[in-house]
């Protein structure tokens, strides 16, 4: 105890304690910097474990010496409050700083200073210890477009440009046209999207060569699968949510059964079902493309999750809204479309965004039926005999890609949430 009392500053001797404490902290950080950047350790004469923890001990003593409430120095007060309010927190602070310092040089070396990006064969990377970004560079087109023939990549690009352009049409619907905006997005847009993808990417007519869906892949396939999943599972989920809240018992129980069934099974078994079981359920001469079967399975699966999210919004609405709508003489559908759903959907924007994020993150699972989007292409590239041994680079590339997509989506949903927030 006396030890701690010695280290405890008072208002009178704080100046001295401050100087000594700051010096000690600086020494400890300096020690770690020396160890990690210059590989030099000045305390090797100490026994092993003490040598290892020396900076931590010095730093803790230093932080202890500057810990004083309302010391009069604003900066010190701020430091004390935010990272140094008790010995435990001080220790964790030091640990985080030291670990970051220790991890920085090897990580930087591997990722930047010793990495290779030049050349286009594996041999270019053989000389250095660092990451081989050449691998990503060479395989980049494959990661984005899959096995789609190189000459036709413009078709995928054009198709996506068209899709985005048609998505923005809603912004230009003014005046009377605005009444049809829901109709456009719910029914017309999916049909247009399907036509674009069918004729441009799949081809087979208008002089475009037919490319079978097995060749599709990479990031573009991720986008196609999540895009169709997104636009179709939303209306289906809405209907299921209304069905679950319906007063008609048959409809309610069918909806409950559907939702609980799909929510209880993993997506991977659903995809298995779509690939091995579903063909048995169709007439023997009917042929449904693998990709369409997979997208249908994903839609049916995610719709159950969307339904539960929307149900949450429906339940959160006060009864008065229903009563008011009914008292105006609105029928069931008019009430739902003009009064209930607009309010309920606004409430559940974060939930729906989460479900869509889950959908995007689930797309790699289509590997079980032999389709390969980004992660699938990585696995393919990894086992390519010419490019063995670069798994790490590939996974880092793909994680950053997915992270960026998902982070952007979650940010956008936060923006939407704020935009449609109305005080009630």
């Amino acid at each position, binding site marked *: 105890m006396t030890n701690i009392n010695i280290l405890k500053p008072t208002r009178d001797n704080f100046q001295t304690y401050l100087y000594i404490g700051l010096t000690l902290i600086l020494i400890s950080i300096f020690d770690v910097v020396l160890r990690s950047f210059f590989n030099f350790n000045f305390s090797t004469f100490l026994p092993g474990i003490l040598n290892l923890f020396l900076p931590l001990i010095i730093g803790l003593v230093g932080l202890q010496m500057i810990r004083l409430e309302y010391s009069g120095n604003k900066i010190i007060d701020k430091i004390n409050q935010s990272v140094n309010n008790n010995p435990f927190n001080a220790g964790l602070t030091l640990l985080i700083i030291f670990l970051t310092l220790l991890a920085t040089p090897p990580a930087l070396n591997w990722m930047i200073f010793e990495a290779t990006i030049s050349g286009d064969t594996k041999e270019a990377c053989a000389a250095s210890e660092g990451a081989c970004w050449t691998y990503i560079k060479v395989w980049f087109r494959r990661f984005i477009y899959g096995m789609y023939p190189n000459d036709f990549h413009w078709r995928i690009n054009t198709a996506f440009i068209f899709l985005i352009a048609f998505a923005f049409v809603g912004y230009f619907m003014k005046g009377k046209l605005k009444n049809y905006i829901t109709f456009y997005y719910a029914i017309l847009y999916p049909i247009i999207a399907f036509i674009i993808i069918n004729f441009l990417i799949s081809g087979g007519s208008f002089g475009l060569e037919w490319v079978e869906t097995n060749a599709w892949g990479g990031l573009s396939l991720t986008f196609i699968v999540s895009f169709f999943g997104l636009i179709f599972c939303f209306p289906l989920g809405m209907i299921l949510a209304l069905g679950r809240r319906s007063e*008609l018992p048959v409809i309610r129980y*069918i909806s409950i059964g559907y939702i609980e069934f799909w929510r209880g099974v993993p997506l991977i078994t659903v995809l298995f079902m779509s690939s091995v079981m579903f063909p048995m359920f169709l007439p023997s001469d009917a042929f449904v493309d693998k990709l369409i079967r997979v997208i249908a399975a994903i839609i049916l699966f995610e719709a159950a999750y969307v339904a539960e999210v929307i149900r949450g919004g429906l339940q959160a609405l006060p009864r008065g809204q229903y009563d008011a709508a009914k008292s105006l003489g609105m029928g069931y559908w008019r009430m739902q479309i003009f009064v209930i759903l607009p309010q309920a959907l606004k409430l559940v924007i974060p939930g729906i965004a989460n479900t869509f994020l889950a959908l995007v993150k689930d797309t790699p699972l289509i590997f079980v039926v032999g389709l390969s989007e980004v992660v699938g292409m990585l696995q393919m590239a990894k086992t390519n005999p010419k490019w063995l041994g670069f798994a790490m680079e590939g996974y880092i590339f793909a994680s950053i890609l*997915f992270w960026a997509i998902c982070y952007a989506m979650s940010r956008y949903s936060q923006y939407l949430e704020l935009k449609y927030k109305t005080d009630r």
Partner: protein
Amino acid sequence: MNHRLKNIIPQLLTLLFVLAVIGFFTINAQLNMDERGIDFGYGFLGQESSFDVQFSLIEYDGSHSYARAYLVGLLNTILVSVLGIIFCTIIGVIVGVARLSPNYLIRNTAAWYVEFFRNVPLLLQIFFWYYAALRALPLPENTEPLFGVTYLTVKGYYIPRLIWENFDILFYSILAAIISIVIIKNYAKKLQEEKGQQLPVFLISVSLLVILPALTLITGMVQLEVALPVLKQLSKTSFIYADGISVPPELLALVLALSLYTATFVAECVRAGIQGISKGQKEAAASVGLTPNQILKLVIMPQALRIIIPPTTNQYLNLTKNSSLAAAIAYPDLVLVFAGTALMQTGRAIEIVSITMLTYLSLSLAISILMNWYNKRIAIKEK
């Protein structure tokens, strides 16, 4: 009459639609199976499976039946799920509390962890751990021991095997310890509610759990032998550790990825739960003189748990379902063993996929019943 008709017609139409879809599928399935000469039935479960499984908790080889293979897969799935749930709860609670820490660095480190790990697809994380991180481990012959007796190698994690004699006595002693802990806990609760005294329940429980089994060991009723992993040469260049328990790298990668991924969601639930308790509760507790630890234990946690448990249950369910991704790295779980290998061999798609789905449905149901029971136990009891 008009009103009733208005109610009945949509229901009738929906029912007809569902029946038509089911009927269409059934008739097609029947026709297809007739065409290929397969008959529907679960008799194949008794046949000899004639395939091997890499990792199994029960005795199994190719001469056992498909039903046994199913059991092997199911047990492996349950093993991964239970391990994952335990670890994701531990990490999740720590990170969730850390996100509310007054320490700026800890708060932000935790936030970055959550933001990163939940925005990267789980499959990618599993691949990362299995193909990149664990492949970088040393070969068995070059491995330095971890904690003295365990070896983390590229071929798996080798830990000592415990060989018990008279294990049942030890088991009863642990059971006795647990029962007495429950009794003491109830007594402590009564004491707390009636007189406001607090017993050091945690200390007593831990010491009971340690002392009772230790007594059986000391008195010699139970004997324990430890089989340490020993390096063994299989061929000129191939080494393994024998005698210990070997945890295959697939299991390691899967548990790591599942728990790190799910922990981000659990952490968010924990954070939401603690934040959901109004500040007034904390201040009121402080003003009656409770210490910070008592505030957390007696005031915040009991209330926060009510908010935390329902969403956390969902995360446990997700983890169990996500454990099916094991098939991607060839960990022999239910999907790989049964819906993969067994399906390939027998070709009985409908039976096997339906059994697999039903199994997952019942697992989900079991977890949600268990957690609902727990939730009800700690819910507010209004008088």
